[in-house]
């Protein structure tokens, strides 16, 4: 029979102080992520505000109201549906000129529905990557590559999808109300938030191969409302009750490429076969 004292001593030996040194690369990686991660606002009003004069409080309140109004107007002006990458900047216009190649990259069904400003932001094709460059708006069937998102992703697309967002860290497609987002996030962060908010666990991961890349896939149905962070906190996706999240993570030269299909469960289910067919063609030249 093991006594309590023996257990205590054994645990002191097993868990007691040792040489634990956090590798610098871990600290560096954390600081790199922090550099692009905004802090949340404090719940507690700051003491500074309570010390303000009434006049300054009025100015601050007016400014806050202005921000709310501007944000509200911006929100109302946006398309409905899940907001993947809500905080992301709009894709920047590449410096290279390429009106001819830009028009060549737009499918016939896409050009008619684009505004002049959207046409102006179309990126030229990259000579190194196969297919045409994804551009804002509807995507015609064919082979396309990401002109801005890195690593360059090549996909063979069917009709019906819309390219919603693209920058170096986020590439988004949409079918119905389902969003297919490509990011570099550690998916554990997003799933951690879901778990803590909803006490919901994703399915066990299972191996998957997308094109020439191996990794794992998992799925989750969100039982409550939550905010998931795709880019270490800088991009948020507000889920609703019953939203689904299907995740693929593949290894690209030692770095995870995370792909999320998210949205209302019915839309995710409807889009899943098409998404899987697209991802089966995944290439990165």
């Amino acid at each position: 029979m093991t006594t309590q004292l023996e257990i205590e001593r054994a645990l002191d030996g097993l868990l007691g102080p040792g040489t634990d040194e956090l590798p610098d690369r871990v600290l560096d990686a954390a600081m790199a992520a922090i550099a692009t991660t905004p802090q949340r606002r404090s719940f507690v009003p700051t003491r500074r505000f309570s010390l303000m004069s009434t006049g300054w409080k009025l100015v601050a309140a007016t400014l806050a109201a202005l921000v709310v109004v501007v944000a509200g107007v911006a929100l109302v002006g946006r398309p409905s549906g899940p907001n993947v990458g809500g905080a992301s900047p709009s894709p920047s216009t590449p410096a290279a000129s390429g009106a001819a190649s830009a028009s060549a990259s737009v499918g016939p069904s896409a050009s008619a529905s684009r505004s002049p400003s959207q046409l102006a932001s179309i990126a030229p094709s990259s000579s190194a990557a196969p297919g045409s460059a994804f551009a804002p708006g509807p995507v015609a069937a064919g082979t396309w590559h990401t002109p801005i998102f890195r690593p360059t992703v090549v996909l063979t697309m069917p009709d019906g999808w819309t390219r919603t967002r693209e920058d170096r860290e986020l590439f988004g497609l949409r079918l119905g109300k389902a969003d297919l987002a490509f990011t570099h996030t550690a998916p554990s962060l997003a799933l951690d938030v879901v778990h803590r908010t909803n006490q919901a666990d994703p399915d066990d991961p299972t191996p998957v191969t997308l094109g020439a890349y191996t990794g794992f896939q998992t799925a989750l149905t969100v039982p409550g409302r939550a905010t998931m962070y795709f880019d270490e906190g800088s991009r948020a996706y507000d889920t609703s009750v019953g939203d689904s999240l299907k995740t693929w993570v593949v290894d690209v030269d030692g770095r995870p490429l995370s792909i999320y299909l998210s949205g209302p469960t019915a839309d995710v289910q409807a889009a899943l076969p098409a998404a899987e067919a697209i991802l089966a063609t995944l290439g990165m030249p």
Partner: protein
Amino acid sequence: MNADLVQKAQHGDQKAFGLLARACGDRLFGIANRIIRDLDRSEDAVQQALVTAWRELPRLRDPERFDAWIDRVLVHACYVEARRLRQWNSNIRILHIDGPLAPDDTGAVADRDELERGFRRLPPDQRAILVLRHYLGLQPAEIAVTLGIPDGTARSRLHYAHRALRAALDAAERPIAVGEEPRR
């Protein structure tokens, strides 16, 4: 802990946060490694804890309690990593179901190995409480503050963790009869 640095970091000073992270990094890694028992996953847990801590830091009301607060953030990150590790492990077992059998458990095993094995069988919350007790040397009341749980809950978890570990060790000491399955 320098409360000034905490306050600066709360107001978005990344350099101040970097100094805080460097100051507590080894301790966090020690905690994570003892809970998770896997170096790579422990590094991931610390990295995620630091990012989460940075994001949530403005909500810390008392800068003097930064150490206990970030320990709590880390323990939650460890729960996630431990769960993920368990999921991967179960997956790996499925993939290797036709592979070589596990080594014979009936042979002589060093006490430390038995203790290690027994510890790994504990759920993450019990492992965490033992690590806070035996690595950081915290008293149950301090553990309760760190984990944000009632004092009584901390004491009861500590009691059950010790009892579960003792049961695991006692089971390992018993000779296993032919045909009897080793107890889990």
